[in-house]
């Protein structure tokens, strides 16, 4: 059971601002302001106007935490407050944490590298200039540590790092911990703050990101014929997962229930995707089986929809393979058109979007979808949100390394 939500995403701080953005069809993609992107192939991203102090972080916390940790902690605090969970309800040893991230604290690592290497001039860097928290930046597990401290969790704690599916896999891991009884509550979610020169450059090198620098607001175009790559994003989403009976007992407000989760790998290529979507289809089938649902039960598919040529075709094929004829009748949308692709974080942000779609009975649209692609011939909810009953959502992710993940969420 999901009983609390916290989202810090481009376009506004907090779950309410996030829903307002993605249900309106507005986009938060723009020219990069976090550093000067002159000279880069892709100079656009979905950034958060994030003031950590205004979000309640103390001066010590701001100094200690990399941006990804800050986003994660702010989201975790919102989720915990939203859930109303107290230490009397669930003591520390019964609280677990499962946080996803693709690139950990790279932004902090890069900033500090520039200092210790004197602007990149010294391969043998000078340790005298290292900040005291540098080791905390090197190990991505710090992101889970910070959330565990926030949640006063002393049960099982993990950082899941399966690239761009990490945010779905971390929620799935939390779901398993609750299912097995390893914890009564798991604070699960993901965070990434990858808008830094090295990450932007590494996607430039393989032309994965959109070079549509002249029109950033409309650059993220999942499923559109004119899509030309993903637009990098940043953000975090954290949720409180709770065992069903315990949640009911304490009278918690329940957003939705996770009913199925599965992941598969394509064992094909670190970045390339075969057009047939075979392994994602298998993950979807296995998740449906666990949920004891049929394809016809799926009301909405929250797609990975990154906006690369290969992804959107791959995924469309997977939906058809797994859902058969029902794929043509099922609304599919990608919120990456609005909040960009925040790597490991986006999976959790998309779970949050799915949960909110169930809560509001509104399907967020795929913004910027104006020219259909003959290879992408499903109902992608172009441009404007759609009001309709949403009981069951399928949320999927696909990532470097070949990971394919599917999760099913249901109204309880």
């Amino acid at each position, binding site marked *: 059971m999901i009983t609390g939500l916290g989202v810090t995403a481009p376009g506004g701080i907090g779950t309410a601002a996030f829903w307002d953005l993605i249900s309106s069809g507005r986009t938060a993609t723009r020219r990069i302001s976090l550093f000067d992107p002159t000279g880069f192939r892709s100079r656009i991203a979905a950034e958060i106007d994030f003031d950590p102090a205004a979000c309640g972080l103390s001066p010590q916390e701001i100094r200690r935490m990399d941006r990804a940790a800050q986003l994660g902690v702010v989201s975790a605090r919102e989720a915990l407050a939203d859930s109303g969970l107290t230490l009397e309800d669930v003591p520390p040893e019964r609280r677990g944490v499962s946080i996803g991230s693709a690139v950990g604290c790279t932004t902090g690592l890069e900033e500090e590298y520039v200092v210790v290497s004197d602007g990149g001039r010294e391969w*043998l860097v000078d340790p005298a200039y290292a900040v005291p928290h540098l080791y905390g*930046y090197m190990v991505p597990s710090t992101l889970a540590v910070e959330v565990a401290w926030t949640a006063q969790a002393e049960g099982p704690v993990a950082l899941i790092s399966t690239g761009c599916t990490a945010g779905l896999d971390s929620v799935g891991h939390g779901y398993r911990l609750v299912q097995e009884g390893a914890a009564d509550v798991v604070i699960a979610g993901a965070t990434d703050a990858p808008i830094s020169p090295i990450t932007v450059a*590494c996607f430039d090198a393989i032309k994965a990101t959109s070079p549509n620098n002249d029109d950033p607001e409309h650059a993220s175009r999942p499923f559109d014929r004119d899509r030309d790559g993903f637009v990098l994003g940043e953000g975090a989403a954290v949720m409180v997962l709770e065992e069903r009976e315990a949640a009911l007992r304490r009278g918690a407000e329940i957003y939705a229930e996770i009913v199925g989760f599965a992941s598969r790998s394509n064992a094909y290529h670190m970045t390339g995707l075969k057009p047939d979507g075979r*392994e994602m289809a298998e993950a979807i089938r296995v998740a449906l089986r666990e949920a004891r649902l049929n394809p016809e039960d799926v009301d909405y598919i929250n797609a990975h929809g990154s906006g690369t040529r290969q992804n959107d075709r791959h995924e469309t094929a997977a939906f058809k393979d797994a859902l058969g004829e029902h794929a043509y009748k099922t609304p599919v949308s990608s919120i990456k058109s609005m909040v960009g692709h925040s790597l490991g974080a986006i999976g959790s942000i998309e779970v949050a979007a799915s949960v909110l779609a169930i809560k509001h009975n509104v399907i967020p649209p795929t913004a910027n979808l104006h020219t259909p692609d003959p290879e992408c011939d499903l109902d992608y909810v172009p441009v404007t949100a759609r009001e309709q009953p949403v009981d069951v959502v399928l949320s999927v992710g696909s990532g470097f390394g070949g990971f394919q993940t599917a999760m099913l969420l249901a109204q309880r």
Partner: protein
Amino acid sequence: MNDRKTATRSGRAPDERVVVTGIGVTAPNGVGTEAYWAATLNGKSGLARITHLDPERYPTRVAGVVQEFDAAEYVPSRLIVQTDHWTHLGLAATAMALDDAGVDPAELPEYEMAVVTASSSGGNEFGQREIEKLWSKGPEYVGVYQSIAWFYAATTGQVSIRYGMRGPCGVICTEQAGGLDVAAQARRLLRREARLVVTGGTDASRSPYALTAQFTSGMLSTRDDPVRAYLPFDVDACGHVPGEGGAMLIAEGESAARRRGAVPYGVIAGYGASFDPRPEPGRPARSNLVRAIRLALDDARIRPDQVDVVFADAVGVPERDLAEAAAIGEVFGPRAVPVTAPKTMTGRLYGGGAALDLATALLAIRDGVIPPTVGVTSPAPGCDLDLVLGTARETPVRTALVLARGYGGFNSALVVTAP
């Protein structure tokens, strides 16, 4: 939800025993399982002055570097250029482990094989090289493989691709505890849906930047003498020495492993994890290690007096060693169980460390011998442990407990038993 149709459950055997049938090791004191094991039983250390870079300007000048390792022997040249040293070590260890298990992945169902590895510092050497190009020359000099070599999922992804393993793959980063957490995840997958899981981890925090970063943990030794640099539980303890490498293990459900005639090393019998509360200034740190140990023993249905050896986390920092010794004492009683830390011969391998300890524990079960803790001569007051010092101790080992603590507060405990 009311009109859900019933379908068969995906779970198959929640209590299936999970066994380890293959081990591959790339360690500072030996490449290959038997080379490592022979060195470890003989007390041969892999710690030495760093030579892969000029260590003079760093506070830490001793490390456990994997010697005589030629990636080309194990990894196709095309893959070598696409991956970091850490992944080379992982691919090599995986090849050895699969060979040891006598299993041909091509013959198993693709969706029932998975890869779950631990990582802690990712492809830091590859990453530093690319970030140096970016900052000294410009973004167009960053290479096409940075995006797939640097991130923490690189080893899992490459192993999955190399062997056609299309099941539920994963990556867990809990610093030194990762090797046990991925073994637990392997067991979970084998009980739910998988037939074979490649698990374990390697790490290679060897770049100049990674060395610098590690030093800020405040836990690294600055002593120049490789013999005296890493002395956990000793009066002379002064932090730990970093190392590289690790181990990969092949885990299978026991019935399937037996059916194909495999000879298991041992059973992954119990697991427990806990997390420490945030340390508060001016107050003694509170450790939840005892709870992780008890959870693991309960899970394995093993009493403390049935445990034949404890592989300690042995971080080498006096107050943390004391906390570990106290936890072991609280569960087992004073000097009630042999305790050892063969990582004194390899350094701490982070994402690879607990996986290597797990491999070592299984070898101890196989051969009935406990490898020594080297270098330590005078246990510190309060470290009231039966430490296996100096030379290996021959004794039947049916049950071993492996402990690991990850930076920031992770505690993991894993029980392995004779097959």
